[in-house]
């Protein structure tokens, strides 16, 4: 029976996996395939556990963006802040912005949160480490779906009719998650060793939010708009918002370029993550 089905051989040496790229790529593909079922199980576990213990259930996905929107609508309506004219009614503009931003944020924090929560398991059981990250992405996707459904209801209430381009919205959301995961996974290895990263991240993200047209529109000229345009997240938010509301996206090429960049970065940080896990597990538990 062993002749037909030779046993897989695993070798552990001090050599860096990157020194043998061919084998490393093979292992990466193999582990990714092995993670499919496991990551699904983990995601189902986490999602059902999360909602089983919460009375408001799915509504929790909305609390933060809605609260955020309320604040901005209030600030703008009371004249404390002059946001400027938006094509969309301002509440809709802000709600879409904060919802999309929330999706991005979740994607950023998911890898580190997932790995942190699975510490015990990681330290004791050998399973494809990708599964934790993928499970996190599933959860983000699940929450994003709820948010999108709510957004559609809000659009309908405000009488905003999206055109055919609404079918492109999932691509927009996917690229937000892609970019978020790339950033989050990049921070994960060091963030697990030093808690500073976890503490600094929300502040950094808050700052980044104001450098992205989330709560105010991108205007034609000025220093701020140059700065906003340098931010590769801008085309992601802008394009997705346009697709949602029947507008014409202005930065389609930039949007694609950001995605290509995000994919390249994600591949690179995936490799780093793989290399880092044994080192981190060793330091976490010792």
């Amino acid at each position, binding site marked *: 029976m062993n002749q037909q089905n030779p046993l897989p*051989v695993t070798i552990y040496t*001090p*050599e860096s996996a990157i020194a043998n790229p061919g084998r490393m790529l093979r292992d990466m593909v193999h582990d990714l395939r092995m993670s499919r079922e496991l990551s699904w*199980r983990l995601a189902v*576990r986490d999602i059902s556990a999360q909602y*089983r213990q919460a009375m408001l259930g799915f509504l929790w996905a909305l609390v933060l963006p809605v609260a955020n929107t309320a604040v901005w609508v209030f600030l703008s309506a009371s004249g404390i802040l002059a946001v400027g004219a938006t094509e969309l009614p301002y509440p809709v503009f802000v709600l879409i912005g904060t919802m999309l931003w929330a999706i991005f944020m979740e994607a950023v924090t998911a890898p580190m949160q997932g790995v942190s929560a699975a510490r015990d*398991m990681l330290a004791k059981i050998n399973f494809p480490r990708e599964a934790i990250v993928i499970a996190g992405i599933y959860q983000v996707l699940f929450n994003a779906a709820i948010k999108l459904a709510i957004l559609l209801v809000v659009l309908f209430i405000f009488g905003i009719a999206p055109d055919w381009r609404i079918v492109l919205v999932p691509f927009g959301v996917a690229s937000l998650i892609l970019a978020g995961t790339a950033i989050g996974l990049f921070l994960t290895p060091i963030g697990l060793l030093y808690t500073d990263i976890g503490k600094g991240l929300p502040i950094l993200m808050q700052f980044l939010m104001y450098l992205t047209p989330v709560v105010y529109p991108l205007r034609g000229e000025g220093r701020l708009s140059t700065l906003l345009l340098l931010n590769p997240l801008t085309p992601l938010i802008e394009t997705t918002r346009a697709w949602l509301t029947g507008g014409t996206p202005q930065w389609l090429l930039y949007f694609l370029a950001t995605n290509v960049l995000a994919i390249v970065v994600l591949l690179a940080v995936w490799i780093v993550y793989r290399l*880092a896990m*044994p080192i981190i597990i*060793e330091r976490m538990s010792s």
Partner: protein
Amino acid sequence: MNDMLIKAEGVSKRFCRSLKKSLWYGTQDLCSEIAGRRHGGHGQLREDEFWALQDVGFELRRGECLGLIGRNGAGKTTLLRLLNGLIRPDRGRIEIRGRVGALIALGAGFNPILTGRENIHVNASVLGLSRHEIDRKLDGIIDFSEIGDFIDTPVQNYSSGMQLRLGFAVASALEPDVLLLDEVLAVGDAGFRTKCFKRIGEVLQNAAVIFVSHSEAQVSRICDSTLLLESGVAKHHGSTSDGLRLYRESQQGPAPPPRIVADASVSALELHHVPESMPWGGMLEIELAVKISRPIMLGLIFVHFSRDGEYQANAEVRLESGGAMQLGDGNHILTFSVGPVHLGRGRYQVSVSIFDASGKTTIFQALDIASVDVVGPATGGVPHLVPIAFQVRQDVASPVRTRLTLDT
């Protein structure tokens, strides 16, 4: 089926004592790893580091079981984690063929809110079972765990024993080629433990097993060979009985000093004859010379065997009223024939205590006056009673030399 499944050569691992430095070294290692350099540099120690494991090597075939013994902190767990691929060696090489199963972290990844059934799916998935295998084995797992109707209840309502049983049932459903076992067997109630052993016995025949345990009886029953680790170094690799003997010796500190407590009637006491070792089931002859300065009545005589300060067995003689023995002035030789002694193998301390007929007044207690090695099978240390015969003779010829150190 006689194929080599584990091959470890010169495996070394270093750890760091200081947390701050450890994190910093981790960051350094991470950078050099990304740069494609060897993990652990050229195998030298950095500041505050030490070898948690040094040059350990062994080979294991299917159907063989290697016992991993050693004190806490000797590197057993580190070796298991290396074999499991959780951490990487700093030197050396490990080659493993086939699926690795570990009965180490039972119930890892259990979510307390989810039901037992849901947790089986998750846990089995984490351990590497495919959905197909899980579906096929689900009923078997539930049966084995003896959870019954509670299987659809959240795991947080389970007793710790139930969680453990469920964890073991899932973990042991894996059919591994290489099994890592870490003293999980010391848990659960007796009935379930028996079942666990039976299940492990089944796996043993089809896998290469590494078994970490402190229980001599378990190791000598299951293991074909043992690896004794001492401060990260393999002190012994070979026959189980030798390994266990060395381990026992390494565990034994120097024998505790004898302590003698006596009342005023005993002025000197000397141990004449105790053999250094005896076979299991053999007789132990003890000769004790005492010098009596005031006549005494012997009533109760005890001989204790203790190990690491704990009583393992005792022998007693009760000279019932009327039979109480009077010892006059002068030297006497007290002879005790204790046995057959059915103590598990190991080194024991022997103590002799003598009380008067009422059992209330201590005439003397000679604690830890001798140590004796019992040679034979390893058995559990269940305290028991040993037969004894006792006689006294007047001894005029040889004077009793030892002066008493009187504890008051």
